[in-house]
């Protein structure tokens, strides 16, 4: 039984807006990062898929940008409780990037410039659920929001959508990434409110 807050009425979302539990809508785009924003020149950028032993795929910026792109609109949900609705992005589907990767591994550790990591099951990166995005609202993605390119896995809490991505390592077993080792949930489904570890 919740404690009732005397005199609190709150500000509810507009009718028809469906939010995951415990979230509120913001029109801003807050930034959460554990450290400084890395500067990643495009002529040094690369994205590598490996399995811990060998490189399976590698792109530089040009070959990455030669991949077919998609434009999509999605809601995003941050574990710090804000949700931003109807954000529009352009990026390359992970389906395209994983198309000729042969592997029995079921998990991926996504890696970023600056050292950030996050773990995601491979099945959450396939079937039009994940992209490497490089434009937000028709503009090149700003560094503080993850530019030149960030992962976007909008059906999970937004910390899984790693900024400044540089690749992913496929793994046979699930292992915690950066925030997952620092108090946050191993999977992070906002609709089941999987915010913190041990929940």
């Amino acid at each position: 039984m919740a404690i009732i807050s005397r005199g609190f009425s709150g500000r509810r979302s507009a009718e028809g807006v469906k939010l995951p539990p415990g979230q509120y809508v913001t029109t801003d785009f807050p930034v959460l990062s554990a450290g400084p924003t890395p500067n990643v020149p495009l002529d040094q950028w690369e994205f590598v898929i490996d399995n811990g032993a060998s490189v399976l795929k590698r792109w530089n910026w040009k070959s990455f940008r030669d991949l077919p792109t998609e434009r999509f609109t999605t809601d995003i949900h941050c574990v710090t409780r804000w949700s931003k609705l109807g954000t529009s992005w352009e990026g390359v589907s992970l389906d395209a990037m994983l198309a000729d990767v042969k592997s029995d591994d079921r998990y991926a550790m996504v890696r970023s410039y600056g050292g950030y990591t996050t773990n995601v099951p491979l099945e959450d990166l396939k079937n039009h659920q994940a992209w490497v995005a490089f434009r937000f609202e028709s503009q090149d993605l700003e560094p503080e929001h993850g530019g030149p390119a960030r992962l976007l896995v909008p059906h999970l809490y937004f910390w899984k959508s790693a900024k400044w991505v540089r690749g992913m390592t496929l793994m046979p077993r699930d292992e915690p990434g950066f925030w997952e080792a620092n108090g946050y949930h191993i999977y992070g489904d906002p609709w089941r409110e999987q915010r913190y570890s041990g929940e």
Partner: protein
Amino acid sequence: MWRVGTVLALRDETASARTLTLEVPDWPGHVAGQHVDVRLTAPDGYSAARSYSIASAPNPEKRLEITVERLPDGEVSPYLTQQLIVGDQLELRGPIGGWFVWRPEQTEPIQLIAGGSGIVPLIAMIRSRASAGSSAPFRLLYSVREPAAVFYREELRTLTDRGTVRITYAYTRNVPKDWPLPARRINANLIANATWPSTLSPTFYICGPTSFVENASGLLTVSGHSAQRIRTERFGPTGDRR
């Protein structure tokens, strides 16, 4: 799980910020720098929760302090800073976060850099240092709009007087009377004069609005500090869109 905290005391820090002292009988303990989720529930069951940095050091009394800045169009902060009274109960979940934390086992020089209400998790580190009897060298660079916007004013003055923590203030809009410098944002010169040099391999904790943290952390990496030693926490209300 949500725990129940009872308001023991309320104290105004500035015209728009208030410190809440809560007693939480089953509080599991925390580490300086962590935060806590606070949930309010209306009579019809609607609830809203927000995350706040913890200001108090870990303590055996199961007391928790948070300092809340009132956001003009906020949903939870106006209630916490204007309607809440002593004796009210709140629901709390936490502590949360294992990265932006300072532990008394750390002996290296610590550089704290606060922008506005970003001082809150950093005062917890300063208080934790004192309560743990740590002798880790601490410095604080505190950027605020004007003198009246300084949180924990008397406590910080005492720290300066005793020489426990070296504190440098940077005023961005109005400076105190007889202040030798103009109002300005943190720049490379100030970083060089008011923070530990890279030769001492300090650990940095920077907390403030996004643009403030971006600026300060950028100046530090340019001046030769390793990005691995810079821990940041950015907060809203806005994304500081450029």
